[in-house]
């Protein structure tokens, strides 16, 4: 039904404006292939492709046209070609299934590549089994929305990223589902962009990977079961809010890996069941507040190279280790967090524990110094030692503390 409305809409549109044409591609249509249709099209025209199977090598779009699929036409790259290359501004592509791009050649073939084009819109497509899903290089104001991008997992070297963005600006990546790629979403030198409501799961390396990309925001995304979680490196002014990082288990998996990042805000996120909830290295001036850390191996690992970070009102539940560090000097600030291991009291009933809490466990410190000690994990002896350390800190830095621990969790 919907398709008919779309058709009627376009018919009306084409009647009323003589400038923009609509070209049809499909069996018993004006064109039986996409390439000739694009060739005949002018800027501002629409090319409507009816359901079917199209294998035309590399389709290059060098006109500002809308390419619209009706009844989910399949465009196949024959595992040799980049399927669609966009080289002109104001192109939009929607409603297609784009599959089997070329693999691992030098020019990084993708299902859709935006090459130096602005205001490109990619919506409602299925990208299946491509080397790269959507590849944006030097694009501005592009919108990638509601696409389903998946690949069959192979080794890391044999697959590209789901949405790969390089040297771009003001992108919107919204509501996509990405799985089976190397990195779900990859940003390098991308600025002023927003990543919102995406689901990135079961990717081989990172669910989201961004480097040298300042002034970006990430809201309400779901990162699940990725090989190594999410990595944010060499970046500043990043906002990450209300994202969920879940089930990133593995020998070197993190919910969120922060490396050399500063002046950022991470709040309202949920870190559940990761080997390490957040791993922080060389980060500074980061606000971490109202995040939930539940059932992680380590809630947060703060390396000695971190400073002036502030952690407030986070909830720590059922983590094997809530916090761990390798340094003796404490340059970060903990305040008002909820710790499920806290056994202090609150006489004046202001919701703040009257006794300072030391979130570092002795065993955590030992393991950080001697990883082999992990062999004693959950041993009775360690439990006893940890408890005595809580009473009488000797190995852990005594100023690593939360002076105003919250009695109640702030989130649940």
């Amino acid at each position, binding site marked *: 039904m919907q398709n008919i409305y779309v058709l009627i809409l376009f018919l009306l549109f084409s009647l009323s404006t003589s400038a923009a044409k609509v070209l049809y591609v499909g069996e018993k249509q004006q064109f039986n292939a996409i390439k000739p249709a694009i060739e005949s099209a002018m800027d501002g025209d629409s090319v409507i492709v009816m359901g079917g199977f199209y294998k035309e090598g590399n389709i290059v779009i060098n006109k500002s046209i809308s390419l619209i699929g009706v009844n989910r036409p399949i465009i196949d790259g024959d595992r040799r070609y980049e399927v669609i290359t966009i080289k002109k501004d104001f192109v939009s592509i929607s409603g297609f299934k784009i599959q089997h791009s070329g693999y691992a050649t030098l020019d990084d073939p993708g299902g859709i590549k935006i090459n130096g084009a602005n205001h490109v819109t990619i919506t409602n497509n299925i990208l299946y089994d491509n080397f790269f899903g959507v590849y944006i290089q030097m694009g501005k104001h592009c919108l990638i929305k509601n696409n389903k991008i998946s690949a069959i997992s192979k080794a890391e070297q044999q697959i590209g990223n789901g949405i790969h963005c390089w040297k771009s600006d003001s992108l919107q990546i919204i509501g996509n589902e990405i799985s089976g790629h190397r990195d779900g979403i990859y940003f390098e030198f991308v600025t002023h962009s927003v990543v919102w409501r995406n689901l990135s799961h079961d990717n081989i390396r990172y669910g989201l990977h961004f480097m040298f990309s300042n002034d970006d925001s990430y809201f309400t995304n779901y990162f699940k079961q990725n090989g190594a979680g999410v990595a944010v490196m060499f970046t500043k002014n990043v906002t990450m809010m209300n994202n969920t990082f879940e089930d990133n*288990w*593995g*020998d*070197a*998996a993190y919910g969120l890996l922060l490396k050399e990042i500063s002046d950022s805000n991470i709040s309202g996120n949920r870190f559940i*069941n990761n*080997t*390490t909830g957040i791993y922080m290295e060389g980060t500074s001036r980061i606000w971490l507040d109202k995040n939930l850390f539940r*059932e992680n*191996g380590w809630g947060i690992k703060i390396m000695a190279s971190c400073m002036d970070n502030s952690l407030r009102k986070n909830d720590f539940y*059922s983590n*094997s280790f809530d916090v761990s560090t390798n340094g003796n000097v404490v340059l970060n600030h903990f305040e008002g967090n909820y710790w499920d291991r806290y056994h202090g009291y609150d006489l004046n009933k202001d919701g703040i524990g009257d006794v300072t809490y030391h979130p570092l466990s002795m065993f955590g410190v*030992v*393991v950080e*110094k*001697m*990883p*082999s*000690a*992990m*062999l*004693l*994990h*959950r*041993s*009775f*002896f*360690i439990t*006893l*030692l940890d408890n005595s350390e809580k009473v009488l800190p000797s190995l852990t830095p005594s100023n690593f503390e939360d002076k105003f621990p919250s009695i109640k969790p702030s989130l649940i």
Partner: protein
Amino acid sequence: MSKIGHLVLIDIFKNKIVLIYAIVLLIITWSVFMLEDTSGKGLLTLLNVVLLVVPLMSLLFSTIYLYNSAEFIELLVSQPVKRQQIWLSLYFGLSLSLAGAFVVATIIPLLLFCSLAQALMMTITGFAVTLVFISLGFVASIVSRDKAKGIGIAILMWLYFALLFDGLVLFLLFQFAEYPIEKPMVILSIFSPLDLARINNLMQMDAAALMGYTGAVFKQYFGSGLGLYITGFAMLLWVIVPLFISTRIFKRRDL
């Protein structure tokens, strides 16, 4: 052999303490899985039971049972039966009843709330730990004629395996922190049946990633089939060697 074993088995099954033991295990197992919000936590609690309660019960019960059966054992020795046969029958009866109590009490909630691999690992290790510590209990009861002393030895054994051994491991870790000690650590763990039980169970849980995170050797070894075989073999030795020693002493002992 089977006849005496059978007798001991029936005797112990009717024993109130074993009944209470089974009921307590049953209650603990059900409650940890019902109360904890995740099965992983329940499994960890149960692991602590296997590492602390099961060995203590196995050691103490077998030691006390042997002391209390001294006169009956004498009567058995006066019959035309090999001593070795009597001793092994006692072991057979005791271990089967206590290990049976463990399995019966824990298997259903384990199968209901955990993955098959986790349930099997927990059941098998609980069974094996019972066998090992009864075997050690047989040693404790035979090295001394004095009941109080024998029970003391049993408690010391428990303290050693449940607590002191890991302290020793930690001490060695600190001493040799500068050396590549992962492999020696793995070998060292073979010398404690409880460490073997603990690590193998942890490998079946989420904690496996923590182990792998800190040392590839652990995961390579304990996570592999070879590791399982070696663990199984080591556990078998932990049953056989103490049993062999106590049998040898019993064969030559003046009653």
